[in-house]
C-alpha cells in the first residue's frame, strides 16, 4: 500500500498541477476571446458614434459637390435592369424610364430578362416596341438564372454608355436621378456612385417598418458619414453606377460572389478610384414583407459579404492605393457580418468567466457587451444612428419602433451564424458557388405610385 501511495502521489500531484494548468489555459483562452471580441465591438460602437456626429456636422457645413464645378457634364449613360420573374413590378420601372429627364439621345436602357418563367420578358418587349431606347435581352434557362452578377455581365456586353447605372426591377426612381448620379463622374477620380433607396411599402407589416429603420440608419447616416469622412461608401448594386471602362478593366462582376456589389466596391478602391454617395439621388424600393423572406435575403447578403471578406481583406490591408483610414474602414466593413457571431461568443465567454473566475474587469465588460450588441450592429445600423437618421428625415414617430431592433439584431445573429456555417461547409467541400436565393417582389407599393 505504501508503494502504491508513493507511486500514485506524484501522479496525482502531477495530474492536479496539469488540471490546474489546463484550467488556467481555458481561463486564459476565455479571457482572450472575451477581450478580443469586446475590443472589436467597442471599435464598432465608437465608429458609429463618429459617423453620427460626422453627419450632424455635415449638415452645418455642407461640402461643394462636383455639380458646382461641372454643372453641364452629361456623358452617355446605359441603364441596366436585371430581372428574373419580376412581372409584378417591372412595368412601373420601365414606365419611369420613359419619364427620365436626362437627354434621350444620351440614354440607353437595357433590360436583361434572366430566364424568367413569368411575363417579365413579354412586358419588357411591349415597352421595347413602343420606345426604341429600351433594349431587351433574353437569357434562356441554360444560360440564365445564375444570379445577378452573371445577368449584369451579360448586359454589359451590349452597354454603349460611358457610365452604366443599375436598377433592380422593383425600384421607382426620381425623374432626374440620372443627372444627380452622373454629375459625380465629372471628377475623374470617381469610379462609382451610390444613391439612396427608400422603402415604399413600409406600412405593410412590422418587417417592412423595421427594414425602413435599418435603411434610414444605413443610408441617412452610415453611407453619408463615410462619404463625408473620405472613407468607403459602398456600391449597393442598385440606385448606383460605375464607369464602364473601369469595370471592363476589372473583368466585369465576379460571378462567384453573392455580394457582387460589395466586391465591386473594393475592386474599385483597390484600382485607385473612389465611390461617392449621392444622398439626394433617391429611389423607392420594395422591402421584404415577412421574416422568412427577410432571412433569405439577409442570409444571401451575409454569405456574400463573408465571401468578399475572404477574397479582399488581405488585399485591402496591403494595398498602396488606400490610405490608413480607408484601410481601417474597409476592414471594418468586410468583417461586419462576422460581428454578431463574435459578440455572441464574447457574451458566452464572459458568462463562463464570471462563473469560473469573476473579476471586476469581466463584470464591467460583460455589462458593456450587451450594450454594444444593441449599439453597433454594423451595416444594420445601431439605434442612435437610426434615431438621428429618422430625426433628420423629419420622422419622429417611427423612432418609437427602435427598441424592436434588438430582436432584429438577435435574428440577424442567427442568420450570420448560419451563413458562416454554410460558407465553411462550402469551402470545406470546395464548392465554387453557393445558391442564389432570389427575393420575390409582389408590387406591394404600387398603390402609392398609381400602378
Amino acid at each position: 500500500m505504501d508503494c502504491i501511495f508513493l507511486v500514485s502521489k506524484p501522479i496525482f500531484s502531477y495530474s492536479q498541477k496539469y488540471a490546474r494548468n489546463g484550467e488556467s489555459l481555458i481561463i486564459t483562452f476565455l479571457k482572450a476571446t472575451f477581450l478580443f471580441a469586446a475590443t472589436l465591438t467597442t471599435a464598432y460602437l465608437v465608429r458609429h458614434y463618429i459617423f453620427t456626429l460626422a453627419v450632424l456636422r455635415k449638415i452645418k457645413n455642407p461640402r461643394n459637390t462636383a455639380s458646382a464645378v461641372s454643372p453641364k457634364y452629361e456623358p452617355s449613360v446605359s441603364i441596366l435592369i436585371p430581372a428574373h420573374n419580376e412581372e409584378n413590378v417591372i412595368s412601373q420601372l420601365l414606365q419611369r424610364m420613359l419619364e427620365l429627364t436626362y437627354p434621350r439621345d444620351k440614354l440607353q436602357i437595357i433590360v436583361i430578362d434572366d430566364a424568367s418563367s413569368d411575363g417579365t420578358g413579354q412586358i419588357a418587349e411591349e415597352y421595347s416596341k413602343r420606345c426604341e431606347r429600351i433594349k431587351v435581352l433574353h437569357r434562356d434557362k441554360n444560360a440564365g438564372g445564375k444570379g445577378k452578377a452573371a445577368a449584369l455581365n451579360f448586359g454589359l456586353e451590349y452597354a454603349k454608355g460611358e457610365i452604366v447605372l443599375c436598377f433592380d426591377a422593383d425600384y421607382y426612381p426620381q425623374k432626374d436621378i440620372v443627372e444627380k448620379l452622373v454629375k459625380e463622374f465629372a471628377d475623374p477620380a470617381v469610379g462609382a456612385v451610390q444613391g439612396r433607396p427608400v422603402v415604399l411599402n413600409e406600412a405593410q407589416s412590422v418587417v417592412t417598418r423595421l427594414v425602413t429603420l435599418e435603411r434610414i440608419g444605413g443610408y441617412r447616416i452610415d453611407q453619408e458619414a463615410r462619404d463625408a469622412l473620405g472613407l468607403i461608401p459602398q456600391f449597393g448594386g442598385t440606385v448606383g453606377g460605375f464607369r464602364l471602362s473601369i469595370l471592363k478593366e476589372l473583368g466585369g462582376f465576379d460571378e462567384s460572389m453573392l455580394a457582387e456589389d460589395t466586391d465591386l466596391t473594393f475592386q474599385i478602391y483597390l484600382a485607385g478610384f473612389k465611390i461617392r454617395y449621392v444622398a439626394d439621388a433617391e429611389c423607392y424600393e420594395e422591402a421584404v414583407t415577412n421574416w422568412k423572406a427577410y432571412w433569405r435575403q439577409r442570409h444571401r447578403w451575409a454569405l456574400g459579404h463573408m465571401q468578399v471578406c475572404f477574397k479582399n481583406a488581405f488585399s485591402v490591408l496591403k494595398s498602396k492605393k488606400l490610405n490608413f483610414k480607408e484601410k481601417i474602414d474597409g476592414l471594418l466593413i468586410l468583417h461586419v457580418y462576422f460581428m454578431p457571431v463574435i459578440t455572441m461568443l464574447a457574451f458566452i465567454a464572459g458568462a463562463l468567466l464570471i462563473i469560473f473566475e469573476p473579476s471586476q474587469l469581466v463584470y464591467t465588460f460583460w455589462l458593456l457587451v450587451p450594450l454594444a450588441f444593441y449599439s453597433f450592429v454594423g451595416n444594420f445600423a445601431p439605434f442612435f444612428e437610426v434615431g438621428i437618421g429618422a430625426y433628420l428625415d423629419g420622422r419622429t414617430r417611427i423612432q418609437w419602433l427602435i427598441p424592436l431592433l434588438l430582436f432584429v439584431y438577435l435574428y440577424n445573429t442567427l442568420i450570420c451564424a448560419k451563413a458562416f456555417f454554410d460558407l465553411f461547409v462550402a469551402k470545406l467541400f470546395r464548392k465554387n458557388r453557393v445558391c442564389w436565393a432570389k427575393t420575390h417582389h409582389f408590387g406591394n407599393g404600387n398603390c402609392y405610385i398609381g400602378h
Partner: protein
Amino acid sequence: MILNLIQALVLFSVTIPLFIFITLLPAFVELKKPKDKGPRMILETVLEGISCFMYNIPIENIEKEQKFDASLRHSIARILEALPNLDA
C-alpha cells in the same frame, strides 16, 4: 444564501420583464395605432407626387402628350414672333 438566491430570482423575474415592457411600450403603441406618416416623399414636386398617387398615365398618352407639347411650343413661338416688341 438560499434566501438571497430566492430574493435575487424574484427580483430578476419581476424587474427584467418590467424593464422590457417599459422599453417596448412605445413600439407597441406605434404598432397598434400607427401615426407615422410614411413612406418618405422623394418625388420631384408635390404636384407630381399627388398625380402619381391619383392616376397612371398609359404609354400611348405619354408620347401623344409629348408631341402635343412640342407642337404647342412651336405655335406659341410663332404667335410671339408676330406680336409687336413692347420693350421697344
